[in-house]
């Protein structure tokens, strides 16, 4: 079935699965998993460079920058100011003007701080960033972020790294009905069926990291996630049958 490309600002993608680069045991496993996932967009974090001892290998030496679009995040930021500063540093590296904006509220839940997330979105949009913003599954917060100029709004399916799946599909449905920007489920995905659920609901994509990186076999899981994403997307585009209470025979009921 023909599908349209996913447009995010000036960027266009065929793959709707976005994957992270964190938590892999080795760069080689990461590389193979990225490949198996079919992802075109991969996320990275911004951190202090190591200034003591031997220089470590650079993550970017292991990533084909012609093949992947780099999506830097502001993970670990707990205020709008910090997140904006991190976004500027990320852009200064000269690889991408995309930013996965993440402003967290506290360390235990890693849930987004809605007020500072909105403030940072406004500030970064004004500065010309293509902002993909992580939020909770609150439809009102999501709408406010769209109104602030976010290119994509990315509700969490469940808390970051929790692998609990799409906890509140109803909220995701309301977000999908209310907003017009692409909705990408970000966080909480534990296994392939979680990705399918998100895509069947009509999300434009899914972003995940831990579900692949910490699976016993990350490369196999990456492929499973790829298939799940395509499968859910196809099912969404196909228009599923309505759920009914009673049976509806598949074989003709008439006599020979």
């Amino acid at each position, binding site marked *: 079935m023909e599908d349209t490309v996913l447009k995010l600002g000036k960027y266009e993608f065929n793959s709707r699965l976005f994957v992270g680069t964190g938590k892999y045991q080795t760069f080689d496993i990461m590389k193979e998993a990225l490949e198996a996932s079919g992802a075109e967009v991969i996320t990275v974090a911004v*951190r*202090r*460079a190591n200034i003591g001892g031997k220089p470590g290998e650079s*993550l*970017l030496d292991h990533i084909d920058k012609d093949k992947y679009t780099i999506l830097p995040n502001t993970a670990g930021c707990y205020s709008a100011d910090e997140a904006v500063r991190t976004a*500027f540093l*990320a852009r*200064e590296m000269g690889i991408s003007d995309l930013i996965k904006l993440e402003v967290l509220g506290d360390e235990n839940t890693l849930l987004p701080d809605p007020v500072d997330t909105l403030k940072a979105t406004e500030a970064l949009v004004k500065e010309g960033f293509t902002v993909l913003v992580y939020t909770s599954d609150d439809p009102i917060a999501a709408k406010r972020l769209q109104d602030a100029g976010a290119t994509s709004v990315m509700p969490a399916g469940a808390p970051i790294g929790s692998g609990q799946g799409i906890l509140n599909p109803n909220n995701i449905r309301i977000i999908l009905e209310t907003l017009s920007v692409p909705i990408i489920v970000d*966080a909480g995905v534990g296994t392939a069926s979680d990705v399918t659920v998100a895509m069947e609901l009509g999300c434009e994509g899914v972003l995940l990291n831990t579900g692949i990186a910490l699976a016993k076999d990350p490369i196999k899981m990456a492929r499973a996630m790829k298939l799940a994403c395509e499968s859910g997307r196809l099912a969404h585009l196909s228009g599923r049958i309505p759920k009914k209470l009673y049976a509806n025979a598949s074989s003709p009921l008439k006599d020979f």
Partner: protein
Amino acid sequence: MQINVNGENKECPTETSVSKLLESLDIDNRYVAVELNHKIVPRTQFNEKILQENDSLEIVTFVGGG
């Protein structure tokens, strides 16, 4: 002279440029961004920007993340 890099005090010669500092710290300058006293130093100015006594630098790079 004394400077501060990523929260650590360092000794460095006068007339050190940002480029020179990165080199002396064995940092690959292709994938870094630098803040000098909380202001970004554009990559194009790494060679000409000379550090002063008590400057505070933040040098960041990309690492794995989700």
